[in-house]
């Protein structure tokens, strides 16, 4: 290992007035990492039932200029997407990730939608992706990279449409991590995290000119969520 590395680590120990950590202390730190504990998680989204959690998600998302359409089944998604595009005068040609999560949606029933499955290019104006979770606390989407979900599809198209399922809704970031740990844990207990985890809360924005918020700085100008969720029991 490099001299710089040894000097930096040695300098840290010297400044902290100790040598390398003892076995017991090291063991305790390794244990802390192996079993990550939750700190305080705000009550905001945790105490809610499923329906109220969906409502909180939608309210928080809309606060940051995300738009949300709620439908009751995968069959209703193509029409919701087509309606959104025509309402905003957007092209009906779109790039869609090859994500199997989108396969139960009958896209062919909307032949007006011209769909290419694959990774996004600069020329793609509209993109559709699935996602990993929705986080109600702040109206945040959690997306993960993989062979079927290239990260660039979340950023290159001007308009990003995300299909989110009610069952993907969680209360907090910690709940999102818990699901990801479950999905990516190897038999030896270590995690096989994807290259990229994107938490996305609203369309791209900047306030770098005179502190005025402008949408569409580099990523999508529009973020639209089609939420597939049955209406809960009537209140």
């Amino acid at each position, binding site marked *: 290992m*490099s001299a710089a590395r040894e000097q930096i680590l040695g300098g840290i120990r010297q400044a902290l007035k100790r040598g390398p950590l003892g076995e017991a202390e090291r063991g305790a730190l390794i244990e802390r990492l192996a079993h990550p504990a939750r700190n305080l998680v705000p009550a905001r989204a945790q105490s809610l039932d499923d329906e109220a959690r969906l409502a909180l998600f939608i309210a928080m998302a809309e606060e940051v200029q995300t738009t949300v359409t709620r439908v009751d089944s995968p069959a209703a998604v193509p029409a919701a997407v087509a309606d959104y595009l025509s309402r905003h005068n957007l092209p009906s040609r779109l790039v869609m990730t090859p994500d199997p999560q989108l396969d139960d949606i009958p896209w062919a029933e909307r032949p007006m939608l011209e769909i290419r499955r694959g990774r996004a290019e600069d020329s793609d104006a509209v993109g559709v992706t699935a996602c990993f979770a929705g986080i109600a606390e702040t109206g945040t989407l959690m997306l993960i990279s993989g062979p079927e979900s290239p990260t660039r599809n979340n950023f290159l198209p001007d308009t990003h449409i995300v299909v989110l399922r009610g069952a993907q809704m969680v209360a907090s970031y910690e709940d999102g991590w818990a699901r990801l740990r479950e999905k990516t844990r190897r038999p030896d207990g270590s995690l096989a995290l994807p290259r990229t985890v994107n938490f996305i809360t609203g369309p791209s924005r900047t306030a770098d*000119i005179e*502190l005025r918020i402008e949408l569409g700085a580099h990523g999508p100008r529009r973020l639209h969520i089609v939420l597939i969720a049955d209406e809960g029991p009537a209140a």
Partner: protein
Amino acid sequence: MQPTSHAFAENAHRALADGNLQSALQRMRTGFPGRRAAAVARLPEFEALREQAKAIKDHVLAHLDFYLETFEQRVVAQGGAVHWCRTPEEARAAVLDICRRLGARTVTKGKSMIAEEIALNDYLEANGVTPVETDLGEYIIQIRKEYPSHIIAPAIHLVKQQIAQSFRETHRELDPGRALDEPPALVAEARTVLRRKFLAADVGITGANFCIAETGSTIIVTNEGNGDLTQTLPKAHIVLASLEKLVPTLEDVSTILRVLARSATGQEFSTYTTVSTGPRRAADDDGPSEYHVVFLDNGRSAALGTEFQDVLRCIRCGACMNHCPVYANVGGHAYGWVYPGPLGAVLTPMLVGIKEAAHLPNASTFCGRCESVCPMKIPLPRMMRHWREREFTERLSPPRYRQGLALWAFLARRPALYHAAAALGARLLGGLGRRHGRFRSLPLAGGWTASRDMPAPEGRSFQSLWAERQRRP
């Protein structure tokens, strides 16, 4: 960059006379503090989260060697590399080596204060690699050949007319007759110009808000999405981070993220929080093939165990400068280096030396707002006082200031003499000033009376009144 912190007084005078700067600062004064207060008020757990966030960072600093080694091990296990750099020179060389090996001609850059600290752009440029800043604020100051005046809003010192002029001078290929009067047109133009840069870049460089020991991940927090295009499209992703960015787990960083955006911009959560772990996986259809973390020490490890350790908890939200009455009047450039405001007043002496930066810890009224809004509860005023002590013991303060302090100390250690001198002074000044009730100017206090009058003392000193009152039944 060459610091001009030694010229703080001159810098500040110039800033106060700069009309564009003053109107830009006016916007900041009314913008950030109100947004932060509203966001904090909406989250009942905010104070408790602050305590926990502070405790997490204190824990990391006490075990920094362990967390750095663990982080490195996990980065390497995922196919990434970690480069340890003691100095800015070593960090610049590490970045250039990677660029050269990959034959890189242009690199895109997300916002990184470490890149500013090591003056990376000038170095790359001088060595044949073209760096392109992609955060809008950073891009604006890059084309203006300036440096950031705020750690989260680098171009906050400018008004839109100045930005429009810079765009016209730089984007010469575009129609000179185009309208650029309003921010939307400026943002759209930057988007178009920079999109081409993203697609052409060979290497992408970002900073890191956090490095996660548990997973070997780095995290960036942005609103524009520029950091994501920067790290996703090119062949290699280089992360610049200082040692103290370590956080143990994903749960721990979730806690800190809850106080970060609220303290910085008053947002519930920043638009993009991105967790990057290693290079692209074998089956992935995009992402960088190489992932490098360049760690910079630059004097930070030596601050551990000293009275300045607490500043290493800083998560660079900018709340201290957003709430500082001095920053709000002179702006960031007056501080003369990359870190302005109360944070700069503590960090700059640590990184460039108290000799260069002696003015900065003195550029404070000690009103304490910085500490009261700091999400990591860093005792900034106390540390500024420590720097003032060092300045004094290292004999860096001006002779007259030192003589005055020595005289005061001499008297303060002799209470009887002090009281007698104070009573005499009060009577003398009271007598001289009786006619007008105030002094327009006083010998040895010209700096004080330049902008206000000194009221003439009336009657007796507090001490003698107090003594008399104590004697009464």
